[in-house]
C-alpha cells in the first residue's frame, strides 16, 4: 500500500497541534452570564405565555450587554 508520507506528516502535525487546548471561552464570564439568566428564570418561575416573551427579551438584553452591543436591536 503506498502512502503519501507528506500527507501523513501534515496529519501528524495537525494531530499534535490539536492537543494544545489554548482556544477556549472564558468560563468565568460565561458562568456569570448564566447566573444572570438563571436570576431571570427565577423571577419568571410562575410566568404565563405572555411573560415568556418578556423573559426572552430580558435574556437578550443580558447577552447583548455581554457582547458589548448597546441595545436590544443591535444584533438584528
Amino acid at each position, binding site marked *: 500500500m503506498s*502512502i503519501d508520507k507528506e500527507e501523513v506528516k501534515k496529519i501528524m502535525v495537525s494531530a499534535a497541534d490539536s492537543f494544545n487546548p489554548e482556544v477556549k471561552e472564558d468560563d468565568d464570564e*460565561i458562568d456569570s*452570564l448564566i447566573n444572570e*439568566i438563571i436570576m431571570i428564570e427565577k423571577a419568571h418561575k410562575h410566568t404565563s405565555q405572555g411573560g415568556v416573551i418578556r423573559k426572552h427579551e430580558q435574556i437578550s438584553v443580558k447577552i447583548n450587554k*455581554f457582547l458589548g452591543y448597546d441595545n436590544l436591536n443591535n444584533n438584528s
Partner: protein
Amino acid sequence: MNLLKLTLNNFRIFYGKRTIEFSNDPDKNVTLVHAENSMGKTTMLNAIKWCLYAKAPDFENEAKGSKILNHISHEKQDYSCYVEIEFSEEGKTYSIKREAKEVKTKLGFPGEDRGLTILENDDKSGSVRKKSNPQTFINSILPEELSDYFLFAGETYAKTRNDSSTRELYKKAVRDILGFTLSDSAIKDLNEMQRKSNKELNLLHKENDNTTSLSVEISDLTKEIETLSDASDILKEDIKEQKSIVDDCTDKILKSNHYEAKDLQRQIKNQESLRNTSYKNQTNLLTERQLLVNDYGYAVFGYSLKNKMDFINHKDYAGKIPGKYYIGFVDELLKKEECICHRALPKGSKEYVAVESLKADASTDKTESRVRTSINALGLFNGRSKDFFKQDGRIDSSLDTCGEEIASFETEIETLKDKLKALSIKSIDILIAKKEKAEKAQYSFQREKNQKDVLIETKERNKKTKETERDNLSVDTDKIKRKKEFIRVLNTIGLRILDHQSKAEKKARSLITQNVQRNLDDCLRKNFTVKLDHDYNLVTSFTGTDTIATGTGQGQALLTNLSFITALISHSKKRASAENRLFLPGTIAPFVIDAPFAEMDGSYQKNTLAFLPNQSHQLILFLSTGQWDAEYENVIGDKIGKRYYLLNHIPKQDVPEKQVLKIKNEEFALNINDSKSDKFPMTTIEKIKVN
C-alpha cells in the same frame, strides 16, 4: 414542605370535621396511624392527593359522583365536603383547601380553581393573603408527577411507566426534585431563542444577493420541518389515546367476573410487563452503547489510524518523518565547514549553499516533538479503544440475551392470548377485539410517527448543509456578524449549562444509587446490584452479572421503590441549603405511605422500618393492624412523634366483631357501637399518647 395538619370534612367515611396533626419534631419525625383494613387509611392518603390535585386514583371514577360525600352527611342534607391541608414551606405557613358540593347527585367544584383556595400566612409579619394560580403553586412545591411517589400507596406501587410521555413527565419531576427546574427552563428558552434568531439570520441573508436562493431554500426547509414536527406531536397524542384504550380494556378484563379470563389476562399482563422490562433494558443498552461511542469514538478512530500507520515506529521514521535531516546536524556541518564526506564547505561556496538549503526541509526539535506526541497519542488511543471493544462486546452479548428474552415473552403472550380467545366469552371477546383494534392503530400511528421523525432528521441535516453553504458564500454585513455572534453565545451558554447539569446529575445519580444499594444490601438475602437508568428507573441485576433481576418478587420491587424515594428525599434534604445559583435547593417533601409492607415478608418489613425514618424528612405511615408487630416498637418506637388509630363507629343495630390494637401494655378497641350512626358506619381519628 412540612405537613402540619390534615382536616377531612364529610369526606368519604369521615363524617363531620376530623383532624390529624403530624409530627414535626426532627428527632421524632414519624406520625403513625394504625387501623383495620377499609377503615379509612387509604382514604386519608387519597384525601391529600384529592386536595392537592383534584383527583385520587382509588375513587377517580367516582369523582363526579356522590361517593366522595359522606353518606351520613348526604342523609342529613349537608351537601358540601372539603379537605384542608396545612403545611409550612420556607418560613411561611399555607392552608390549602379544596371544597366540593353535591348538586342533583353530581359532585362539582365551586369557583374558578376547581374548589381550591390557598391562604399564605407569613409567620414573621402575621399577614395573610390568598395565592393566585393555586394549582401552579402546588405543582411547584410537589409536582403532580411525583405525587404517587411521595404519597405512596404500597398496594399499587407497581405503576408502570411504559409510554414515553409518562416517562418524560416522571423524569422531569425527578429532575425538579433534584433542583434542575431553572436550568432546564433556561435551556428551553435558549433553544427557542436560537430557533428564532436563526430564522432572523436567514432573513438577513435573503437580502444578500449571493445567498438569496439558498436562504429561500432554508426558509422552506424550516417551514417543512415545523409542519412535520406538528404532525409528529399530533401522532404522539394519538398513540397515547390508543394506549389508554388498550389499558382500559386490560383493566376491564382483569376486573371481570370470569375467573379464567381474569387469570389469563393477569398472566398476559405479567408477561407483557417482563417483555417491556426487557425492551427497556434493550433501550438502556443501546443508549449505553451510544454513550460509549461518544466517550471512546475518538479512540476507535485512533485505533484504525494506528493500524494504518504502524510503519511509523521510531527506527523507520527516524530520518524520514518529519524531515530527512535534523536541523542540528545540518547546522553542525555548516559550523565545521565540513561535509559528512569530509569535503570542505567554505562559507559562501556553492557546496555550502547547497547544504544550507537542506535546512528548509530539515526536521526541528518542534516537529520531532510533534511526531513523538502523535505517536504517543495513537498509543493511548489504541489502549482506550481496547476498553471500548471490551465493553462493546459485553453490551453486544447482553443485547443478544435481551433479544432472546423478548422473543420468548412474545411467544408466551401469543399462546396466552389464544387461550383467552378460546374461552369464547362474549363480553371478553368484545374487549379483546377493541384492544386489538387499538393496538393495531397504536402500531400504525407509531410507524407513521417514526417515518415523520426520520424525515425531520433528514431535512434537518439538509438544512444544516445548506446553512454551511450559505455561510461560505455570504459576505457578512455588520448586522449578520452581530446576529451570528448572538447565536454563538446562545449556543455556548446552552452547552455550558448542560455541562454543569451533567456533572451535578452524575453526582446525584451516584449518591442515590449508593444509598439504594446500601438499603438493599441491609435488607435482602441475595446480592443485587442497583443501577439508575436514564429515565431514573432503578434496574436491579444479580451481582457480578448483567442479568436483570426481572423475576424478583413484588416485595422486593416494593422495597426497591421505597428505597429509591427515601434516597431521593435524603439527597434532596442534603441539598436543602445548596447555594449554587444554577440549581434550586433540594425539594423537601414529606413521605406519606399507605400500607408500606403490602407484599413484603417479615424480614424485609423490619429492615424497611429501620431505614425509612432515618432517611426521610417527615414520615407519615398508615399501617394496618395486621402488619404491626410488637417487636417493631424497638425498631421505630423512639422515632414516633405522634400516633393515632382509626376508630370504626358501627350502627347501633349491628354487632361489632371485637377488634383490638395492642400498643405496649395498652389495648385500644378499634370499633364501637354508636347510637349516632343510624344506617352507616363512620370513622373517627383517635390520638394515642406518645411517651
